[in-house]
């Protein structure tokens, strides 16, 4: 029973913190984007299992492009974002070519795509940077955090809703746009 009361105590201490909700909103954004990616494919009745691989690959490309341009100071993150979108779109195009032109079951294309992308991202990272696990040696910078004008001054809500990275807002807006 001691364990359970400890868990309840920890939870009750955490749920009152605004940071907790801030973290929820922030960490839901990538999952949300991935879910939207799958949802739009699912509308065409195509289960895109390759989303995982596409995300890994695009993330690597974003970091590489951003740092090669010159990082934070020279607008690297924005160029990285554009490069990632292009790479993601291209990989999605590859999935569709294999699935519809070459007539492979799209679930299996996705699985193969995941294999290729996880392998290729590590391989590329090793060849280009010499690291095998992370790209901490590259200074790629981050996209800006946005403070929403009026909302940021409201005590608790401002802390929760304002000050996220711009892509977080994009993710939530896309839910309604799509």
């Amino acid at each position, binding site marked *: 029973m001691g364990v359970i009361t400890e868990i309840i105590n920890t939870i009750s201490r955490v749920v009152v913190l605004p940071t907790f909700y801030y973290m929820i909103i922030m960490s839901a954004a990538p999952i949300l984007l991935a879910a939207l990616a799958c949802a739009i494919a699912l509308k065409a009745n195509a289960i895109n299992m390759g989303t995982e691989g596409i995300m890994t690959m695009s993330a690597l490309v974003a970091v590489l492009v951003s740092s090669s341009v010159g990082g934070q100071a020279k607008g690297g993150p924005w160029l990285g974002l554009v490069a990632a979108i292009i790479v993601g779109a291209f990989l999605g195009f590859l999935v569709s070519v*294999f699935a519809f032109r070459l*007539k492979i079951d799209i679930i299996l*294309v996705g699985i*193969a795509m995941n294999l290729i992308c996880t392998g290729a991202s*590590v*391989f590329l990272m*090793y060849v280009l940077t010499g690291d095998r696990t992370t790209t901490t040696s590259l200074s790629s910078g981050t996209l800006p955090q946005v403070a929403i004008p009026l909302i940021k001054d409201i005590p608790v809500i401002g802390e929760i809703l304002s000050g996220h990275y711009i892509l977080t807002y994009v993710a939530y807006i896309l839910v309604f746009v799509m």
Partner: protein
Amino acid sequence: MSEKKETKNVFEKLFGGMDVEARFGLMRMAVAILIGLGTAIILILIGAKNPLESLKYFFLGPLQIFNPNVAKGIGWNYFDQWIQSAIPLLFTGTAICIMFSANKFNLGLEGAIMMGGLSCGWVCCLLDGDIQAANANPVACAILGLLVSMAAGALITSIPALLEKKWGASIMVTSLMLNYIALYISRYCLFSTNLRDTKTSKYSWQWTENVVLTFRKFMGTRFTLRLGFFIGLAIVVIGWAFLFKTKWGFKIRQLGQNPSFAKYVGVGIVGTGILVQIIGGAIGGLCGATVILGNYNYYYGVELTGYGWDGVTMGIFAGNNPKKVLPAALFIAYIRAGASIMATQPGDPINELTKIVEGVIVLFLLAEKFLAKTHRKMIVEEAKKKQALKAEAAKEVTE
């Protein structure tokens, strides 16, 4: 006429007896594998600091049966590494072949392997480990471990089957999620129960070396005879016989090819669908137990093994026919062993390229329309040849 026959080249002697489809299938497979290996060569040339040396290790490494260093206690026996990495592929490949034959995309093999390893480890700890200073017969202990692991694997993969039967939940989604449930059950058991050796942070209590030795016979100091490989072979043979030589296997394949036909012909589709996944899970559990017992004398499972996904690759390579799992497993294991041998050399830690090679081969193996023009040409040629033969025969008759 007889002269003409003798001048036929070797190629035609080998493949002349086959029909066009079989010949084309073989050719497409060869082309896919060549494309994959070509990718590997290009990647090695790009990535390696010493490409020729790396290529030598990649292609010839696993054939080195006697590594002279092993006798001195340094390094690995590379041939043994090849066989060792083929073992889980045999199990998972057969399991996926059986499940995918019924068109049940159960991806829960990963979880079955996890639960199999866990339950087997627990049995061995209790019966022949230092947890209670118990001393059972190691052979009996191993056998019991294998049986329990089969039950555990079957249990976990039967959950998506039952969910589908009861509420129509997609097997693919539920089984994928169950993998994580199995992983966290395994973690919970390791971290929060008395399975964990209190002296370590993430290993279970050890069982005696005797249990491991029933699985691994050292032939001298250089060569290891692995029982797991023979169990895997047995599973492949049994799986093939089950799928292609029994009434149940016929029902399963019927269900996969055309569920409505199977239903009206009198195959119990619900029962068969569940049976398939129970069998697949049992084989998965056996795989986990074999890997654990054949390699370690403690249980260690805090991460997913990835063997389940390998099974999907195997199933695709083998075209859902367990008979072909053996060559497919040996091939993939050869590439992997070659890559990891290459990775031990200074300057070449790039064994991830096997994943790229596997993915590329899978894509080109599956592509129905790949080489479609050649396919058509082959059929046309065959038809023309037949027509010519017929015309000749007709001429002979009239003469």
